[in-house]
């Protein structure tokens, strides 16, 4: 059914969008007037009302979080591309194994990135009071969605 196909593609694209937003937007940890993410720390000085942004530290754990987030995007994009390839080349009754595997890998990468960030973030930001921003939450949300999407691909069969 076309509806099923559309639904699966929408889910995949949603996962991709979530991954992109959470990697790029600067809201992983927010505090009073400052926000940090994977690539820079921005702080709004209340005195001058100017937003100062500096590059994040070169901590190895931060680099590994950046790397796994980028990897998850790569795997998800690859999975989308492979899905369209397999849609036209797979035999009837075949399963979208490769697509599902890459999507599951993307989900695992996001999970590892978010976990490493959660455990190790005191190493590169030193704000006293902080809370997690929406980009961080998006990263965690995209993990089960990516797993779900990958599993759907693995159990789905190609029909005529």
């Amino acid at each position: 059914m076309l509806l099923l196909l559309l639904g699966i593609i929408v889910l995949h694209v949603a996962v991709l969008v979530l991954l992109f937003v959470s990697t790029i937007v600067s809201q992983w940890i927010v505090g009073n007037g400052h926000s940090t993410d994977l690539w820079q720390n921005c702080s709004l000085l209340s005195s001058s009302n100017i937003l100062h942004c500096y590059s994040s530290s070169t901590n190895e754990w931060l680099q590994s979080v950046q790397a796994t987030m980028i990897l998850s995007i790569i795997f998800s994009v690859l999975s989308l591309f492979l899905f369209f390839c397999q849609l036209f080349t797979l035999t009837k009754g075949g399963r979208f194994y490769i697509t599902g595997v890459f999507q599951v890998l993307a989900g695992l990468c996001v999970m590892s990135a978010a976990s490493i960030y959660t455990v190790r973030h005191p190493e590169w930001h030193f704000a006293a009071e902080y809370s997690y921003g929406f980009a961080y939450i998006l990263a965690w949300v995209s993990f089960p969605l990516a797993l779900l999407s990958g599993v759907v691909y693995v159990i789905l069969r190609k029909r005529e």
Partner: protein
Amino acid sequence: MAPGAPSSSPSPILAALLFSLVLPPAQAIVVYTDKEVHGAVGSRVTLYCSFWSSEWVSDDISFTWRYQPEGGRDAISIFHYAKGQPYIDEVGTFKERIQWVGDPHWKDGSIVIHNLDYSDNGTFTCDVKNPPDIVGKTSQVTLYVFEKVPTRYGVVLGAVIGGVIGVVLLLLALFYLARYLPWRRGNCTRQAPADRGLMCDPPLQTPVLYAMLDHSRSTKATSEKKSKGLGESRKDKK
């Protein structure tokens, strides 16, 4: 391997070329070193020095290394090489720590400093004189001594990305190899031209699994077709 790029690399070459083309052959010597060198306390560091000269390398070539401490004003001479003989500092702060690793015929005037200490922070100047070519610019390299040498940004990033992608590709390749390996032993049968590729017998356990899946799916399906051939291409209608 030089840790950093040679200082002022393209412009002296360009300037020298221009000089040699525009003016009558002027004699100038250009010295190249790194801009910055990082070292860890207690380890050794190599200070590279190379030069370009409009004359052939003569036997009277001389290299001089000077050291200016961080925040100091005076530069002291710590190494000199002349007439084929290196002269190493034997009384100063670099006593017995300098090693000559250069070779004039390869245009290399590098030295190695062993057993670094925090007091070695400063600027080193390499001066080369190649008679009759004696007029020229020297070059300076700044030494930074750290407790632990900081890794450059991007090393971990690139390593993680490259490693994971490499492992995934390797696993994919192994998987495809394993799937088509029984073909060598003749267990695969070529399907009808409509299907793609070969159909190979999977390992022994999966026939049961596929049959069960087929059975569970067929109970919901309106029509079922169970095929004896096992593998991925089965017809299934809903």
